[in-house]
């Protein structure tokens, strides 16, 4: 008798405790997540997106209602389109999510002309951080000291700019940015990876290079590169002109967003759980510290903000489509 009573008490206490810990689901433990979650990364291990996921995912696990593992899965084929298509076709139960490069995915789809996935239909969960903006760099040994020098050079001859291949965001940023600024360019394309084309400018292959801020910062700190102009609305580099100063506010729209999404049709409660966990992970001290050391701003976005952002980016890049696709 006494045992049963004690057992009842324990059970009752447990139920009360769970009711207190999971306010939205008073009587039973939440159904989601009940097993491991797959985090699809459409790139090879070691790259920028891969690193972000591997830093954030283990922290995100802590903020999920149940204890499960978030397993990063790299699917690099097809320049990333394989992974995105895999995410698109997965079951919308919240057990498969992925990270997407916006506008990278738009550009890739433009290049490949693929109909395997519709970027408008993904269930947007949030974004890892504030979008990265671009800056114009020159090698430390370059004779160009200010943006005015660059503009003057462009009047004399096309500026040689080292960029990645046409399927990359740096290429798009360079093309659009120089169009907006009225600079004549000769693109030296095809450099692979995020560091190679900046080193090209340091080495003297090209006159200048347009790279994202976190990448550029590595080289700036090492003293090998100088920033001439920033595409941000307000420059974070002292003494360097920005989009507002240069009279081209559109430059601030060129950014690399790391968007987290699930397949179309995830139930709203599940989407919410994931979204909240992601937001809390990005505010976690471990992540904040890492972000600071790597010049990244880890501000999270709500699903609504993300949807808006994606639509905005799509409109922007559709406008520039003719400059980016092969003739």
């Amino acid at each position, binding site marked *: 008798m006494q045992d049963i009573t004690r057992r009842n008490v324990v059970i009752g206490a447990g139920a009360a405790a769970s009711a207190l810990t999971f306010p939205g689901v008073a009587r039973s433990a939440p159904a989601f997540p009940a097993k491991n979650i797959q985090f699809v990364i459409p790139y*090879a*291990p*070691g*790259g920028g997106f*891969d*690193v972000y996921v*591997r*830093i954030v995912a*283990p922290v995100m696990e802590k903020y999920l209602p149940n204890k499960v593992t978030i397993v990063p*899965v*790299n*699917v*690099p*084929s*097809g*320049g990333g*389109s*394989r992974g995105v298509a895999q995410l698109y076709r997965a079951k919308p139960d919240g057990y498969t999510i992925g990270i997407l490069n916006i506008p990278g995915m738009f550009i890739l789809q433009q*290049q*490949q002309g*693929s109909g*395997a996935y519709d970027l408008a239909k993904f269930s947007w969960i949030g974004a890892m951080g504030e979008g990265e903006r671009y800056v114009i760099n020159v090698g430390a040994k370059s004779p160009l000291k200010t943006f005015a020098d660059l503009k003057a050079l462009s009047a004399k001859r096309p500026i*040689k700019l080292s960029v*990645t*291949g*046409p*399927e990359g965001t740096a290429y798009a940023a360079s093309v659009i940015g120089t169009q907006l600024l009225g600079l004549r360019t*000769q*693109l*030296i*394309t*095809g*450099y*692979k*990876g*995020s*560091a*190679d084309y900046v*080193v*090209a400018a*340091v*080495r*003297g*292959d*090209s006159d200048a290079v347009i790279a994202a801020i976190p990448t550029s910062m*590595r*080289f700036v*700190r*090492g*003293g*090998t590169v100088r920033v001439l102009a920033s595409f941000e609305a307000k420059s974070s580099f002292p003494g360097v002109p920005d989009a507002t100063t240069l009279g081209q506010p559109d430059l601030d729209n060129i950014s690399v967003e790391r968007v987290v999404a699930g397949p179309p049709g995830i139930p709203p409660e599940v989407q919410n759980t994931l979204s909240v966990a992601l937001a809390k992970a990005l505010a976690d001290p471990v992540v904040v510290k*890492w972000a600071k*050391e*790597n010049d990244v701003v880890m501000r999270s976005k709500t699903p609504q903000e993300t949807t808006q952002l994606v639509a905005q980016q799509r409109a922007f890049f559709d406008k520039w489509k003719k400059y980016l*696709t*092969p003739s």
Partner: protein
Amino acid sequence: MFAAGEEHRQKGICLMLEMWLGGLQGLLHLDVLGFVFLGMVIGLVFGAIPGLGGTTAIALLMPLTYGLEPFTALALAGGVMGAVPMGGSITSILLNTPGTAPNAATCLDGHPLAQQGKAGLAIGAAGSANAIGAIIGTVSVLAVLPIASDLVLMFGPPEFFLMGLFALAIVATATRGKMLRGLVVGALGLMIAFVGFNDVAGGERFTYGIEYLWDGIHLVPALIGLFAVAEMIHLMVKGGSVAQSGSPVKITKMTAGLLEVFKHMPTVIRGSLIGTIVGAIPGLGGTVVAFLSYSVTAQASKNPESFGKGNIQGVIAPEAAICAHDCSALIPTLTFGIPAGAEMAVFMGLLIIHGMQPGPLMLRDHQVEIYGLIWALTASCVLASFVGLLFVKPLAKITQLDSGILVPLVLSTAFAGSFAIDMAIENVIVTAVFGCLGYLMMRYDYPRLMIVVALVLGANTERNFHQSMLMGEGGWSIFLNRPISVGLMIAIAAVLCLPIFRGVFNQLRVRKLAAERSGP
């Protein structure tokens, strides 16, 4: 004024030595050594299984390193990277299955040795060459590290293009007995290399709309097919076991392989130097380095026809180069963040997660960690060789397994590994197709050496050429304005003319001998 400069330099050297010793000291803790050992075991296993390699191993270990100190995480990674080549050599020799792409060069002479029953000798030699190559590579890296960044900056697209041509020229002239057929498959390899998205001009080529081919023909699945699957088909036709029945399997003592290496010290040193120098320049990559070392040794040898039939030097040369290359490939990775291959790319990811940004600052702020990493890599390489040597006897027994059992098991693992590289089922198809191609090449006597090098170099060489043209604004003068380019062009000319000179020289010598014989 001179005195001050001299003092500054001496101080710099002293500081470097201090850091160098600091790296060693940091390693000599029981827990850190434990991680190096763990990395070594993982590296051996992953290196042996085709398709998995250092890349997969480090990617999988990343979550495990989260709680570790940066130094310890690097020690673990170094342990993995140092042992992978040895793991790969074992399967290359025993089963003609390259565990990693560079080990394909070891297959060329390593497997014939296994077929002759000398698997133990080959593994022993590979292990010893690995170890010595790593030591020579490490010492060279430490010597080069201070000027590393300047060195990397001296090589740009024009130099990379010419280096690619140089490698192709050496390999082409090395297959002396089969040069015409070698050139034919070299052309085939280049044709295949151009499949995929064109990085320079945009647009896809030769993909016929297949999305998988956007990145081109994936290299490692193709190599697994060319070597492993082809050999398994061959075994199915031949029957019996890998070690041809009738040849007594020489259960060689541990030291036999080691002795062979000491007999061929010039080969080891040559291979190590090639590995170190070419590895420090982010242009060619480990696979090309291994084949280059193999070809140079074959050219320099007195009986080049014996290569491909079980010449022990054909095992020693690439193995020394691979390990030396692994050490020096760290240079462009660490100083500039330019990964010298997929394994280095993942390794860079590991660095970033632990708060170490590859770049000029890395050398300044994390010198001790870098030296610790290099020590760990070397230690792991040497240790892995010992482990390989220890297990020589049981491993050699695999060559006595009947093909009826061996073939299905190897094919299953090969196809699974091929798929696992990047989760693409088309990899299996590529492996199967190249398997048939590889068998046909074996059967009709076309050398596989050329096709591998052409496959690896094709796309990069073209890209570097176009970039050079864009840099030089369309003129060819860019190649003439840069001293290193000019040097490379002379080297290419020399390599291409060498066979002609040698042929003429031989003719003259033959004629002279004949004249003497029929003389007075």
